[in-house]
């Protein structure tokens, strides 16, 4: 809402600056976002009198003028067709810059000197009028600043009005608020009243079908109008309020809209067919051309104004081309109505038609203000257009539900706000906001100090936001000063029922983040949206995707079903920056369709890890190794260890493996999948400009959290007797896995504890087999193991492995 201080001062004698009022309004909940002086550029422009004016001897279209600007007389060559001696005009001296950015300089035009410029309204930034110079009122004194001569020395406050305060979307509304804040008296200006003719109301039959859609519809007829541009003052004021001036008839409706907050609509009465107007819901599928020339298809919820033949206006939203005011309009039907806020909002949103009118109807207008605004606008229109207002209000209004008073207790407000209030303050504040206030605690005797503790309060009709005691408490603290509320610390009651609950999921997720940081990974945060096309490219399944109905763009039209796209994107960004070693992780929710869920979407929290490039970017001399499968697997094993989780099995995935990875490994924990790890296929990695293998793992943190909260850490006694170690090397064909050999040791039942660890893996170039060397650690819990026993145990193990897996033990001499 753009508020002109000069306009405001027509309602309230506010003498402080706009800045001061802006502060006061901001601290009362009407945030002032900026203050502009819209016509400040006109300050150096002066009024002048064209003393002489003659045709330029060398140019048909130019005039040579002598212009008196008070302290001097300037020679000015002017190209405007309408310039004439005796006119009062706006003069720009040499060196002054116009609002258009043009700086006037000394010139010689076809031999005639020109020391200044006479301006058009367009050049002054006042309107689009550029066919001729602006001719001022003859009464204007010469040599004055144009700013003062046109009364344009104004400040405009840009006030952000919250959706609950539709009552503040007008000069009057803000004047009421200013009065409440400052204690200054509010005065309604005297409006000129002109009337004539016979009662017009029988001439136009009015019908309102649904009082719910349109609780009030009033109209007046103005006859004998002549369309013309509005006077400057009105146009400049509308312009500064952000409304484009059009013509006197339309400008009058907009002026009153901005001033009183009541939207009005003017119809060309001669274009209303059949002498009748009705208000009713549109028929579904009905077509109608709005003022902007666009054809709209209506739905049953839209409010239409119709004549005998069809729709002439989309009520509260936009008028129709078929009943529009034009240059030839002689008779006007002026409408002032109250429409259902929800219906207006639905229509405006559906059609993308947001007007000053619909904005106010959505927020609720003052029903009691509709008629005064109608009269004000009608008389203004008549005065501006040389017409007259016919007596006789054309009206239809549904019964208004009586407004019930709200019981307001001082003690309630004090408790809610944490401040001490006085009874006179409460009463005065509520009255200043236009509420009717009645003492409900028994009444006062004459002369007694006001000590009422509760009141029956009836808010004014314009305040749709005041319906409950708590709303009144807010009004009290707004005027009292929200910033005067003291700071006090509450005692937060702990709920014993929550003591000893397992560690929360958010605490677990924090831990996971810290684990990642300790493990040398960098946390990223990627958008939860991805492009469906991107998912296709990555070969991620189409089943279960969750599309966004109104996505911002096609790169964000699906909720991510996995973290991998975000991490690959981050890799891509970092490769573009020349990163050599990329180690990233993210913990975030992924989304899949789930009809059984309350929201139709299942959210699972995942941990994604991505490795690419040098194993260590910092090592020097530069380490030759690149991150590989063993690094990503090691990180997962480290994760499980750090969270007291059981060891996992890493199993090559079956046919259901995502197409994005090869190889792809299932991570099996306690018999269920806890996630997957794998190498991103080169074609996908290439798209990220990856030069090396990209290794990726994604773990199901919901599943792991469930295991984590159940995990118990118990002390294991330390071994008493020393271990005996033996190494053994197997020559194994390709396809035989190290894990299969280690697993055999686990299966060997014996009183001797056996621990098997791979210590070397040697693959001779070109050979079909590889050598796997294990270190066997034997120990007895009850006594020291003898060397011979260890040798025997080693032999048993070797035999079992050779027999089961069909491999050979390497002889020492080989």
């Amino acid at each position, binding site marked *: 809402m753009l508020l002109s201080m000069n306009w405001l001062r027509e309602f309230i004698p506010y003498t402080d600056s706009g800045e001061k009022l802006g502060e006061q309004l901001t601290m009362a909940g009407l945030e002032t976002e900026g203050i502009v002086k819209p016509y400040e550029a006109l300050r150096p422009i002066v009024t002048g009198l064209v003393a002489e004016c003659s045709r330029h001897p060398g140019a048909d279209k130019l005039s040579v003028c002598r212009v008196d600007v008070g302290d001097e007389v300037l020679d000015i060559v002017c190209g405007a067709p309408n310039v004439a001696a005796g006119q009062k005009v706006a003069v720009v001296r040499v060196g002054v810059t116009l609002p258009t950015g043009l700086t006037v300089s000394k010139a010689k035009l076809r031999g005639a000197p020109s020391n200044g410029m006479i301006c058009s309204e367009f050049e002054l930034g006042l309107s689009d009028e550029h066919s001729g110079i602006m001719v001022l009122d003859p009464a204007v004194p010469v040599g004055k600043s144009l700013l003062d001569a046109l009364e344009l020395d104004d400040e405009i406050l840009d006030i952000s009005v919250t959706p609950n305060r539709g009552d503040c979307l007008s000069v009057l509304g803000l004047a009421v608020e200013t009065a409440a804040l400052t204690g200054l008296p509010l005065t309604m200006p005297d409006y000129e009243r002109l009337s004539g003719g016979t009662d017009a109301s029988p001439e136009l039959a009015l019908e309102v079908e649904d009082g719910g859609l349109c609780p009030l519809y009033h109209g007046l007829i103005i006859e004998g109008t002549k369309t013309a541009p509005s006077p400057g003052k009105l146009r400049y004021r509308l312009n500064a309020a952000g409304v484009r001036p059009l013509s006197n008839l339309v400008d009058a409706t907009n002026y009153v809209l901005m001033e009183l907050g009541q939207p009005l609509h003017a119809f060309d009465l001669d274009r209303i067919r059949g002498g009748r107007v009705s208000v009713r819901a549109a028929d579904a599928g009905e077509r109608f051309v709005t003022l902007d020339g666009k054809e709209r298809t209506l739905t049953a919820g839209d409010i239409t104004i119709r004549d005998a033949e069809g729709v002439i206006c989309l009520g509260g939203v936009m008028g129709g081309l078929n009943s529009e005011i034009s240059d030839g309009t002689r008779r006007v039907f002026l409408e002032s109505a109250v429409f259902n806020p929800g219906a207006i909002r639905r229509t405006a949103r559906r059609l993308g038609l947001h007007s000053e009118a619909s904005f106010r109807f959505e927020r609720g207008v003052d029903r009691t203000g509709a008629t005064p605004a109608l009269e004000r606008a009608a008389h203004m229109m008549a005065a501006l257009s040389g017409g007259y207002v016919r007596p006789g209000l054309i009206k239809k209004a549904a019964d208004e539900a009586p407004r019930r008073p709200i019981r307001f207790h001082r003690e309630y407000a004090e408790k809610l706000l944490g401040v001490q209030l006085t009874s006179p303050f409460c009463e005065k504040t509520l009255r200043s906001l236009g509420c009717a206030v009645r003492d409900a605690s028994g009444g006062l005797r004459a002369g007694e100090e006001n000590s009422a503790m509760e009141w029956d309060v009836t808010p004014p009709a314009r305040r749709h936001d005041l319906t409950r005691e708590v709303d009144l408490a807010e009004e009290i603290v707004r005027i009292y000063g929200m910033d005067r509320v003291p700071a006090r610390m509450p005692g937060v009651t702990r709920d014993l029922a929550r003591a000893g609950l397992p560690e929360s999921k958010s605490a677990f997720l924090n831990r996971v983040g810290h684990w990642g940081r300790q493990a040398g990974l960098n946390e990223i945060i*990627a958008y939860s949206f991805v492009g469906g096309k991107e998912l296709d490219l990555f070969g991620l399944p189409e089943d279960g995707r969750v599309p966004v109905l109104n996505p911002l763009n096609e790169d964000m039209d699906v909720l991510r079903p996995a973290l991998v796209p975000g991490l690959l994107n981050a890799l891509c960004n970092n490769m573009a920056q020349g990163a050599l070693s990329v180690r990233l992780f993210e913990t975030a929710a992924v989304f899949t369709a789930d009809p059984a869920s309350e929201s139709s979407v299942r959210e699972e929290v995942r941990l994604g890890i991505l490795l690419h490039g040098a194993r260590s970017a910092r090592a020097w001399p530069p380490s030759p190794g690149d991150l590989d499968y063993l690094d990503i697997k090691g990180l997962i094993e480290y994760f499980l260890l750090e969270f007291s989780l059981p060891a996992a099995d890493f199993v090559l995935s079956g046919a259901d493996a995502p197409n994005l990875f090869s190889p792809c490994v299932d991570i099996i924990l306690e018999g269920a999948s806890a996630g997957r790890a794998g190498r991103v296929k080169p074609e996908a990695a290439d798209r990220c400009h990856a030069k090396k293998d990209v290794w990726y793992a994604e773990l199901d943190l919901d599943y792991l959290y469930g295991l984590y909260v159940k995990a118990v850490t118990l002390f294991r006694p330390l071994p008493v007797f020393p271990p005996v170690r033996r190494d053994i090397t197997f020559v194994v064909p390709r396809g035989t896995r190290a894990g299969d050999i280690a697993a055999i040791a686990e299966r060997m039942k014996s009183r001797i504890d056996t621990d098997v660890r791979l210590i070397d893996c040697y693959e001779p170039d070109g050979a079909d087999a590889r050598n796997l060397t294990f270190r066997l650690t034997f120990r007895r819990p009850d006594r020291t193991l003898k060397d011979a026993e260890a040798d025997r145990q080693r032999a048993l193990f070797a035999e079992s492995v050779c027999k089961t897996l069909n491999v050979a033990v390497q002889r020492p001499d080989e």
Partner: protein
Amino acid sequence: MKLIAELDNLADAFAAELAGVASAAEAESLRNVRLGRKGDLAALMNRLPELPAEERPAFGKAANAVKERLNRLLEDRLAAFRAEAEDASLSRFDPTLPGRMPERGSLHPITLVMEEICGILNNLGFETVYGPEVETDFHNFGALNFPDDHPARDMQDTLFIAEGIVMRTHTSPMQVRAMLERKKPPVAVIAPGKVYRRDYDLTHSPMFHQIEGLLVDENISLAHLRGVLTHFLREFFGADVKLRFRPSFFPFTEPSVEVDMSCLICRGSGRREDGKGGEDGCRVCKGTGWLEILGAGMVDPAVFAAVGFDPACAGFAFGLGVERVAMLKYGIDDLRMFFENDLRFLGQFVK
């Protein structure tokens, strides 16, 4: 006295030889040959029986003295060699070579800020809760007193998943979830998390982070809200932070408050750091001395009604934008940096 003379000769010869050795190893082998168990001195001492009995003690004493003296000479020489070697290695030692650091990881600045804020509020007794990012209209709007077809819904441009299903536009649905779960006061929770709006430009991200706070207990007032927020903002930004309360509007709080914090750069003066002032004053607060930091208010009775709480109970709620706080804390001036995940950015934040 031939033996004594031989002893002297040996000592002189040893000293001469020692002076000629070039390394610690040569000195050690000299020690073996001359002073060792099977060395020359030992051989000389083994000839003690050749002497008459009365001369033996004097010879023994002299031999021991020579042995001690020669050993000392040798030790000195060895020490000199060691010192030489130390000097040589010290001259090769370069303390300026880069160290071998373990691989360094990092937490995202948003995570760091959320953790710090949650930590402060956890200490006050608020419990952290986690909830869904895809929400029903009921949790995100309905129960929070956003009527259908009300312009309040325009305050938050919404991304829709289906009819009645939205990407949560704020963390406030966690108020609803927490109260529905706890069933009655007291409720003291904070809910950090991602939120979504259909808004994407230089200063708006379609995904960002908020922290919601809710305290419902006996006799909670607006003054308590101010107490908790003052405590939290001072713990986070420093003891000289001042707060300003302005009335505002949120459908789910009444009264609603916009909370401003004294500007961290100009300390509330509104003037520019260099004191020059100029037209606009401090760049961060645009000369006002205040920074909008969060929205808050007393829980609207309609919200209590929607979750089945006694409408007469009282509580406050607040919601804060994490990106804004992180930008202020670290002096980050471009919102987009948070989601570009550039390692050169990510690695900068430690606390």
